[in-house]
Structure formats: C-alpha cells, structure tokens
C-alpha cells in the first residue's frame, strides 16, 4: 500500500515537466522512507540503444522521424512550433543524455496521475504540453503524425526498461536549497562570466546560416511563462548538470541557482493559460516560490509577456 502510494507520488512528480508541477506534492515524499536514497551514489545508468540500431522497416521510419522532429521541430513539426528552440536544446543528445530529462527516463513513467488536474495523462498528452509551453506553439491533436513519431522514438529508446520505475538519471537533478537566497545581481555576474559567450550579452542566443546554434534564454523566441524551465529549481538543475555546454557540473550550486534566477527574471511570451490578470494567473498556475511570474524583480513586474511573433 505504502509502495503504491509512493509510486503514485513519484509519477505525479515526473509529470512536472514542460508545464507546471504541483510543488505541494513534494513534502510527503521526503517523509516517506525511500529505498532509492540508500542506493550507491553512482547508480548504473540506462544505456539507450545506439542510433544505428533504428530498424529500417516501417516502424523504424517513424522512430527516425521522431528523432528528426526532436532535433529540429522548427522544420519537421513547423505548424506546432512558435519559437527558435528545439526539444534537444533542453533534452541533450537528441533526448538520450542522463540528467537532461532523457526520453528513456520519461517514457516508462506514463500514463501518470496528475495531482493538479486530478486526471491521468498519457505520454502523448505530456508531449502536447511541451509544444504548448516550451515550444511556445500549439499542441498537435491526439493521434497527429508528430505525436505518433515522437512517441515511437521514445518507446524505441526505452527498450528493456522496467515500466513504472523512475530510472537513475531521469529528469533534471534536484539541487539542494541554496545556502543564500538566489539573487539577480549575483546571477547577472555568473551570466556574464559563463553564459554570455554563447547565449549573447542580451540572452538572445546566436544563429549561423539561419539556424539557431545557441538558443535564446528569454524574449520572444524562447520558452513561454507556462514552461517548466520557468521554475527556478528546474532551471537550476538543468544548468548545473548541463551548462556551460560540455562543461556540466563545473558551476557551484549557488552559481547555478543565482544564474537560473537571473534567467527566469526576464520577460518571455505570456502563459497561454493567462486568465486576463497577472495576479489571478499567478494564483491559478504559478503559486510557488519557484516561479517569478507576477513577482517584481529590479522594479520590473514580471509576467506581462512579450509578443511571440513581432
């Protein structure tokens, strides 16, 4: 009974992905004796099959298409994308890299109960959320070829994993609370030192030959206010493990928190669930200290949104 309860909570947490989590659900987990906590620190990571193992039959074609969409949705799922990002920008190595919310860490955990809406979401529904928020676009309808291909890719990648067991390396790491509260000015200093080289002084990233090489971190072409990366804890975990590119785990935890706060204290496209008022939208969807939506930072009220396409 207890175990069933725990996996339910874990599943609900895993859902807190491209859209908002229900942070209130976190508290009970800490009190539940978790067998995973005593596991050796360097738990063996699942190794997904090599890309060369994608079969060449009709199923394999869907897998390959899913991979292409994941790497370049602006080209292969254009109708559903509203910014300059790709799935791979936040799920590195085409969704294969541990601690970068890999697809093999998510696929075996669905369908999952969602505490916020009191319903059970399928994996496809979870993918829809990514298009709505992280990609600032539109959700492909259930059964759409884009969802079929992406789900095929995730299924293929997860071959041999147990169902309903969150594998080590899933999601982004959950960093311990910072020693001192995250701070904009310190975050700005980290940004200038360790991020601006690639993401630009203005955070708008860099392009070459019309392609996004370094993705924008805020502004019209980045993820919107409904995306999971908007929460400072998610961003801090991602940044700590994966940034600067190729130099993951070189920032201190404090630096990762500060720079995540700095990034998330910038304006971006409006939350598509916007109710017409910032305080009401905050109360409905951003009622957590991890979100700066509706907060005033540096004299700026956040959450006003910027137009997606000027």
């Amino acid at each position: 009974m207890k175990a069933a309860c725990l996996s339910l909570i874990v599943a609900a947490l895993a859902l807190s992905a491209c859209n908002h989590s229900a942070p209130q659900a976190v508290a009970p987990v800490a009190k539940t004796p978790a067998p995973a906590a005593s596991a050796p620190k360097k738990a063996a990571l699942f190794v997904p099959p090599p890309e060369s193992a994608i079969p060449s039959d009709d199923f394999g074609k869907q897998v390959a298409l899913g991979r292409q969409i994941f790497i370049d949705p602006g080209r292969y799922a254009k109708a559903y994308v509203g910014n300059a990002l790709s799935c791979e920008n936040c799920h590195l190595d085409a969704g294969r890299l541990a601690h970068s919310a890999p697809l093999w860490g998510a696929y075996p955990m669905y369908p999952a109960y969602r505490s916020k809406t009191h319903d059970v979401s399928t994996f496809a529904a979870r993918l829809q959320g990514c298009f709505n928020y992280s990609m600032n676009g539109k959700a492909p309808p259930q059964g759409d070829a884009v969802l079929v291909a992406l789900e095929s890719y995730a299924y293929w990648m997860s071959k041999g994993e147990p169902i309903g067991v969150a594998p080590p390396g899933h999601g982004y790491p959950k960093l311990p609370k910072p020693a001192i509260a995250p701070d904009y000015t310190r975050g700005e200093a980290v940004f200038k030192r360790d991020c601006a080289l690639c993401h630009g002084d203005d955070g708008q990233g860099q392009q070459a030959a019309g392609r996004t090489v370094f993705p924008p971190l805020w502004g019209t072409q980045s993820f919107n206010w409904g995306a999971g990366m908007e929460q400072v804890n998610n961003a801090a975990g991602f940044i700590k493990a994966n940034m600067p590119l190729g130099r993951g785990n070189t920032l201190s935890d404090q630096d990762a928190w500060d720079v995540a706060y700095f990034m998330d204290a910038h304006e971006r496209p409006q939350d598509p669930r916007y109710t017409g008022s910032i305080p009401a939208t905050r109360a409905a969807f951003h009622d957590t200290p991890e979100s700066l939506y509706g907060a005033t930072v540096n004299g700026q009220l956040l959450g006003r949104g910027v137009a997606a396409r000027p």
Partner: protein
Amino acid sequence: MKYLRTVSLIVAVSYVGIVSAAATDGATLAQRGNGHGAAPCMACHAPNGGGMAAAGFPRLAGLPDAYLRKQLEDFANGSRANATMQPVAQSLSDDERDAVADYYSKLPVPAQVPAPPLKNDVAQSGQMLATRGRWSENLPACEQCHGPGGIGVGDHFPPLVGQSATYIANELHAWQGGSRHNDPLQLMQHVAANLSDADITAISTWYAAQPMAPKEQQP
C-alpha cells in the same frame, strides 16, 4: 622540410624590400610586414589570406575580426605558444593588430583546394564527431559551437571549414599538450582532452574535405 625552406626564403626576400614607414595600414602589413619583427603575413598566410595547407599555415581571410585580434593578443602574451607566430605578434603594436585583423576579416573567403577523398570508416567517425559528438564522454558535437558545416558563429567561434587537416590537427594537439590554452571557459581544452589520435585524424580530415560554404550570411 623543403617546403619550410622555401617559405623562409620568401620571408627573407620580402624582408629586404621592406619600407621603413610605420605601417598601420592592414594591407601594407600583410604584404610587407612592419619592418621591426613582423615578417609579411602573406609569406605564410598566402596573398589571398587562404593559408598554406601543407605547412599548417591557417587561413585568415574572412575570420571574425574580434577572433583574429584576440589570437594576436594571445600569441603575444603566451597563452597560445607558437615559435613562429609569437615573435610576429609581439612586434605588432596595438594599432597594427587592429589594422591587420580588420584587413583579414574583410578579405573574401578564398576558393578551396579540394582535399583528398576520405576512407569510409574515417569519414563516418569524423562526421559523427562533427554533427553528434560523443555525449557518453560529455563531448558535444563540433558544430554545436562551430556552427552548421563548421562555418563559425559570431565573434568567438572560428570557422573550421576552410582550414587544412594539418592545421586543425596541430591545434587539437596543442590544446592537449597545453601549449595553446587561450580558449574561453576552457571549452576546447575539454574537447581536445576527450579526443584520441584516431579521432583527431578523423575530424581534421573530415573538415578539410568539406565543401566551403558560400560566404556565410553574417548579420
């Protein structure tokens, strides 16, 4: 060897003809040097700035101004150690560095001499490193920083296409050995540390065999 001797001959000959006027004009520096330590750049980097593949003299034409300027600084301060270029860079004044960097950044990208075709397995592993990286060792793909097709990105990420296999391999070995440690955030030191000799052969010959993209649309 014979090649190097020819080059030093050119350098020596060009030296004789140097005019003493202080040259802060980029073209003059490139063609005649500055008369007090900087040999004419074109003796090694070729009159069109395309470099000399066999000798490992890099292409300078069309590289980002800020990148070229920084390299001259780095040779001079020793964070990029190289017996040939250090004395050249040290002898250039600030103004001369500005002028010559500006000059080369504006030269058109020269037509490329086609590199020899690759063996299949080498080509494959080169392409893999260039476009996918090797994330099991935390190694990003080269093009994630050097741009699609290795055309370069912005001021800080130089193009790889249009450089010779010899030069690319030389630089990767220089980072491995520590003689070049001028890269921001130690990005290239980390990349090079994760490459084997076979990887270096594969990636350098792969880039050298890529077609030169038409001059990238710089903003």
